[in-house]
């Protein structure tokens, strides 16, 4: 099971400059992988191509063994006519009740299940949105800054739990947090600065799991490696 | 050349033949007048326009005039166009003919609520001692479907316009019709007349005379059978909607109402009929007090 891209090129319909130029990479699944790079470099665009939301690219995206791809992002909203807990129940497939309760407790959402989405803080909105995606059936879940407004500590707990709970799934985590990406992810697809000539490369992260003992030195090395690839 | 406006009561059609003809043949121009003949409707009535100064002359039915007098308008009647009121009822000949008012009993009669046919019919009922229980009243609107579908037997029409059209339509389907004319039963409800405001009548008597004379000359000429082809051609220019044959039939019908006898001069004001009209309206409580309409009739 691999996610492979070959010679991907993409230009937005009403734009002239391509956002993605001749991108090729390959990632093994399952695993918690990341996409990293400066703002505006094309991470979201790539994610949408992989999720099949933007047609009209050239090149190949091969997803062997990956049938269901979900794309989630941090600005999504839940409908407002009832509490978020209610919406969560509605989209929980049969048999995943326990998983739901587990996630609610990990994501620290117990107290806000009664609230309407619009009354939540930004981090709460991020979390409730991500939970409903995790409850769906998927092979690959793209999380485009899905936890951007959550505090670092909780974010780490969440990511480690996701890795623990979904060992057989693939994740593509888009984040601007270098430490997180270096420490918690397996393969990191790093986008070089468009102005530079670095292109894209895949760098191995530390892929820590629950209860890890941080090894400062190797982590720093990975971080440096990633920064150099930009 | 004086320019002035003349507001009709209804759309251009054959029943205003004289008005069209007077203008078309240049009778007004000969009298030194330039007359804009304009169509009317219930929403655009001549009496309002006279007061507002939008028009100088107009056509209104007697009930309108009397009502306006009752409300303090100053109206002068210059000529009575219809000697016989065109306000009649049509019914099919497969029904017994209405020979006496008694024959109305048991019929399903169409009435335009608020219209002057209601006033006329009520007067007829009163005359014959018919109560609302003896007949079935049907509220009429502008479309004729209930009559066509025989839901109503006796339907109010203007004899010389709609009357002709309906007669023609039914005849095409092999059905014959009768007309029920209230005048035959002693109810003379005056219809269209030429009017002007008291102010105009007083201040510009010359122009009033010239206008009336030219208009009536137009009517005389239009009602002259020998001019028929020419008149029809002039009407056709204004009223493109109906066909030639219908217009010819309408012209014949109009003649019967405008000039029922060769001896009657067109425009003659039938003072008794006006008085009767006022009496009827007073009885029907359409006006509050006598208005002495006869004092406003200036032939």
């Amino acid at each position, binding site marked *: 099971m691999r996610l492979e891209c070959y010679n991907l090129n993409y230009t937005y319909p009403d734009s002239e400059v391509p956002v993605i130029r001749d991108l090729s990479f390959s990632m093994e699944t399952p695993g918690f992988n990341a996409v990293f790079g400066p703002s505006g470099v094309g991470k979201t665009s790539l994610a949408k191509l992989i999720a099949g939301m933007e047609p009209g690219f050239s090149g190949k995206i091969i997803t062997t063994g990956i049938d269901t791809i979900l*794309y989630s992002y941090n*600005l999504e909203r839940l409908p407002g006519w*009832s509490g978020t807990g209610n919406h969560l129940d509605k989209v929980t497939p049969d048999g995943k009740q326990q998983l739901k309760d587990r996630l609610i407790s990990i994501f620290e959402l117990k107290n806000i299940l009664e609230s309407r989405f619009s009354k939540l803080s930004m981090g709460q909105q991020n979390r409730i949105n991500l939970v409903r995606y995790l409850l769906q059936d998927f092979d690959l879940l793209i999380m485009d800054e899905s936890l951007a407004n959550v505090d670092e500590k909780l974010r780490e707990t969440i990511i480690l739990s996701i890795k623990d709970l979904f060992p057989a799934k693939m994740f593509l985590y888009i984040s601007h947090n270098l430490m997180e990406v270096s420490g918690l992810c397996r393969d990191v697809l790093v986008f070089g600065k468009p102005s530079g000539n670095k292109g894209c490369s895949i760098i191995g992260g530390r892929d820590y799991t629950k209860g890890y003992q941080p090894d400062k030195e190797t982590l720093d090395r990975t971080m440096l490696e990633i920064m150099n690839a930009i | 050349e004086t320019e002035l406006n003349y507001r009709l009561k209804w759309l251009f059609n054959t029943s205003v033949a004289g008005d069209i003809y007077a203008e078309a043949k240049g009778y007004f121009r000969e009298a030194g007048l330039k007359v804009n003949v304009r169509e009317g409707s219930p929403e655009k009535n001549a009496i309002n326009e006279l007061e507002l100064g939008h028009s100088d002359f107009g056509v209104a039915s007697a009930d309108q005039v009397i*009502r*306006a007098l009752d409300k303090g308008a100053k109206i002068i009647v210059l000529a009575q166009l219809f000697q016989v009121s065109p306000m009649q009822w049509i019914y099919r000949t497969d029904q017994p003919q209405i020979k006496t008012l008694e024959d109305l009993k048991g019929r399903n009669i169409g009435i335009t609520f608020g219209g002057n046919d209601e006033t006329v019919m009520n007067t007829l009922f009163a005359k014959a001692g018919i109560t609302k229980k003896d007949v079935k009243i049907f509220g009429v609107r502008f479309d004729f479907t209930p009559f066509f579908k025989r839901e109503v037997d006796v339907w109010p029409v203007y004899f010389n316009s709609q009357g002709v059209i309906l007669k023609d339509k039914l005849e095409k389907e092999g059905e014959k019709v009768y007309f029920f004319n209230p005048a035959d039963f002693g109810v003379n409800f005056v219809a269209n007349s030429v009017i002007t405001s008291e102010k105009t009548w007083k201040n510009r008597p010359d122009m009033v005379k010239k206008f009336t004379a030219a208009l009536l000359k137009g009517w005389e000429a239009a009602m002259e059978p020998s001019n028929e082809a020419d008149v029809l051609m002039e009407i056709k220019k204004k009223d493109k909607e109906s066909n030639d044959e219908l217009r010819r039939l309408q012209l014949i019908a109009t003649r019967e109402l405008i000039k029922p006898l060769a001896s009657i001069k067109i425009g003659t004001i039938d003072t008794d009929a006006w008085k009767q009209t006022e009496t009827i309206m007073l009885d029907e409580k359409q006006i509050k007090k006598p208005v002495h309409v006869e004092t406003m009739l200036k032939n």
Partner: protein
Amino acid sequence: MLFRRIYQFLIVYFIGLIFLLLIKAVLSLSDYVIPGVGLITETFGQVLNTYFFDVMNTMSVTVLGQCISIAMAFGVGIAGRKSSWMGSFIKVTAYNIQAYPIVALAPIIFILLGDGFISRLLIASMICYFPLLLSVLGIMATPVEDIEHFYIITGRMRWQLEVKIRAFENLSKITTVISGSATLAMAGTIVAEFIAANAGIGYSIRVALYQSDLAKILVALFMIGIIISIYQGCLETLGEQIKTRWSVSKGGNTI
């Protein structure tokens, strides 16, 4: 709120009336063209009672007609929201029928349905529904991407849900249009009565019009105005309550 509506209406009405009376005075018109205060007051006393019941009669059709219009507007709006062939066909049908003035359609309606209550109701709803339809179409055709995305990508989107999401996000627009359309339902019913019925205030207006009795028309306008104000005030209050119930303020999510 309701009270405010009523006295605001009174202000509007009396400004209009004073304006007419001024014209009457300036042009020294007779009572026939523009009735004087005396005549209006007198007519008021005479017909207020009758007209009140006439308007209430009309109101009963109005309310029903409005309900039907709302149902029709949502039905057609939802069916026609897609830019597919069928959606466009439904829109063309709806639009074309609307372009026909009701006076032209009335004969056909009477042939088909007779001239009873049903025709009156149909005409009222036809006049009222179209403006609603336009709003509903506009709302239903605009995606709310940040909410709909989840349901689309997970294959959970059903048309009912789509409609619910879009309606909820535009709740205040919808309540504005619905409570505003009450006046259209009223006008529609009156027109229907004007051309078809033997009852209701529309019928009374027609009679007054035939008799060129502007005083009666002014009284009718007064009655219509005051009752529609009350009705609308109630609708607005109801709308507010629905909004609060269904939980309002999609805004607030971040600011």
